[in-house]
């Protein structure tokens, strides 16, 4: 893999610290709705059953949250999938996203990685209509950025980049002047950098 192992500097959407107990200045009161961001990065292990995605998506909509990014893939364990979600808590208390996910019977564990030291990756594939000297310049930009050319034809190249959200955004910004004719982006996958005692 040529993906550079950049450590995440900042979230695309920085978050306020979680509220709770006596420390919460809003203790027992309505939360102000004008906080800078309410995005939670959650990693959930779910049972690999039909309809689980519907349950998760339905719950998110029902509770007034909003999914901004989502990826689903298998885990190492048989019958278990991992969902990584970037969810805006909407008008709700931010801890509600995790708590409501945990209520779903087929959701086994949920980790809120928002404030944890973590790695996060997204993948983007971009098809550029480039030829001639323009193509050379585009490929040079891709190299400089640590992306890769994964397919090339007479009139186009397809490039890939992976990294955290911001890095993918910057990469695409650089490529836009060359004419992106098709773009496919994944949702995030994220992982805590810490090792929990039960994981050792």
């Amino acid at each position, binding site marked *: 893999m040529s993906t550079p192992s950049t450590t995440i500097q900042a979230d695309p959407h920085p978050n306020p610290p979680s*509220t*709770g*107990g*006596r420390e*919460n200045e*809003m*203790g*027992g*009161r*309505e*939360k102000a709705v004008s906080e800078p961001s309410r995005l939670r990065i959650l990693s959930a292990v*779910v*049972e690999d059953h*039909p*309809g689980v995605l*519907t*349950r998760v998506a*339905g719950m998110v909509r*029902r509770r007034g949250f909003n999914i901004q990014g989502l990826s689903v893939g298998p885990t190492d364990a048989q019958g278990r999938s991992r969902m990584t979600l970037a969810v805006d808590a909407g008008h*709700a*208390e931010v*801890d*509600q996203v995790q*708590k*409501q996910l*945990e*209520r*779903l*019977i*087929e*959701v*086994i*564990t949920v980790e809120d990685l928002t404030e944890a030291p973590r790695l996060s990756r997204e993948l983007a594939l971009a098809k550029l209509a480039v030829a001639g000297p323009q193509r050379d310049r585009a490929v040079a930009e891709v190299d400089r950025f640590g992306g890769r050319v994964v397919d090339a034809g007479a009139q186009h190249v397809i490039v890939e980049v992976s990294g955290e959200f911001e890095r993918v955004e910057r990469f695409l910004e650089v490529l836009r002047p060359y004419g992106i004719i098709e773009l496919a982006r994944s949702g995030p996958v994220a992982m805590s950098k810490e090792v929990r005692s039960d994981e050792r």
Partner: protein
Amino acid sequence: MTGAEIVLEALQREGVDRIFGYPGGANLPIYQQLPRYPKLRHVLVRHEQGATHMADGYARACGRPGVVFATSGPGALNCITGLATAYMDSVPLVAITGQQNTTLVGRDAFQESDVIGCSMPVTKHNYMVTRVEDIARVIHEAFHIATSGRPGPVLIDICKDVQQASWEPEWPEAVELPGYRPAFTPDLSRVREAAEALSKAERPVILAGHGVILSGAEEELCALAERSVTPTGTTLLGVGAFPVRHPLALHMTGFMGTGWNLKAVQNADLLMMVGMRVDDRVTAKLSEWAPSCDTFIHVDIDPSEMGKNIRPHLEVVADAKTALREMLPYVQHPQPERRRSWLTQIDRWREEHPLKYARSNGHLQPQDVMIEMYRRCDDDAIVVADVGQNQIWAALWWNYTRPGLFINSGGAGTMGFAFPAAIGAKFARPEKAVWCVAGEGGFVMTAQELSVAVKHRLDVKIVLLNNFSLGMVRQFQDDFYGGVRSEVDLSEMPDFVKLADAYGLPGLRVERMEDMRAAFDFAERTPGPVLIDFRIDPDANVYPIVPLGKGLDDFTELPDEYA
């Protein structure tokens, strides 16, 4: 065994004795086998919504899960309102619906609908069974999920060809649900802190919700209130959890609660909320709720209730019974003088803001009907109320000296709930008197179930508070929507005495106070269902009431000139 037999055998193994249902194309294999299982006594309803409310009333009355059968498509969809009602109020139900053949699902086959998709938001969990091997496990899991932790309805959608397939099942003992954690042991340090805070508070209030009744914590609640000398109120769904005639009783809270309760909540320095969601009907305007309170203690079995509406200072995540029992030993009996001024203040509020109603305008008053009914309840009858003014009148005039069962649709507010739920309650507790209080609007929404009461000669007494209008909506239009009465007139209604007669039960009409007692006497001495159509004051309103968008102590009372 066929899938249908596995279903019925599994239900029998779960201890089911009563099923409320309606047959149709997609559950015919189950109904074909049903007569071979006489322990599963089936009640043929007249509409599937009725089945769900009956199962709901059954579950609330005896604590065992209610069971519903319905066919696919419209049969299953008719269950949705009843499932939502049970879900909002955390009532354990298991609904088993038939579904089209596995090979036809997804092809818009006859009476096919996406019951899983439709019921997902109104059930605790649901299953679609497409393999006969899964039936026994799924039913066992469904009962476990419905009844454990915070209870709720579970739907099982079983394809017809699966009901017809053959399999020799192994009956599971345990359940394997790695993502389901229903039981929480309370954090003892939190429990202790909560008990100490309660003992130390100057002006504490306990509010009890449905969770107290669901966990059977009435005794523990009473003991905690008495030991800590804490005034105790209930939510609408908590009515019955704490004896209303107890000296520490604050009766019902919320935007139609009693004046002394609302004053106490608004002036409390500590609020302990037990087994409740703290929803908008409890708090009125949230930002103005309990402004003097510096210690919120929330006891609930569902961790997601912590901070959903109110961020507590102390969280105790456990079922109410366990939490209160653990708390008791740490509660210090406060010095009498420590509580005296608070209790005196509450007594003063009780005198200043009594429950009042119009008495002298010549009309029959709904409150008089309720007072007379409760006089006959003897602290023991199950009272099932519908939704609207009748519900609040029934709740406010509740007068038990000990815990009792007041059943109503609190969260969902489902009109038409009361009568079928009363039928279910009577099936569950045949030894108890059951009174059904309803307005005429809600009653006609599920009145077809009269046939069920007649068929089973059920002693359910129907107290119809008939004001010829959608009373609560009318009151809101009068008071909060500029007095524009829009589509609330129900003067075209059946003659309820004739309606009762048509269904085969006795019906009476009462228009004057003088005839009220004789009608109740008749109802009590007549076996089987009786309907009394009380023609009440068409302008009777619910008081006190907090105007929409106002704080809890901005309540409006009955103007003195009407009292």
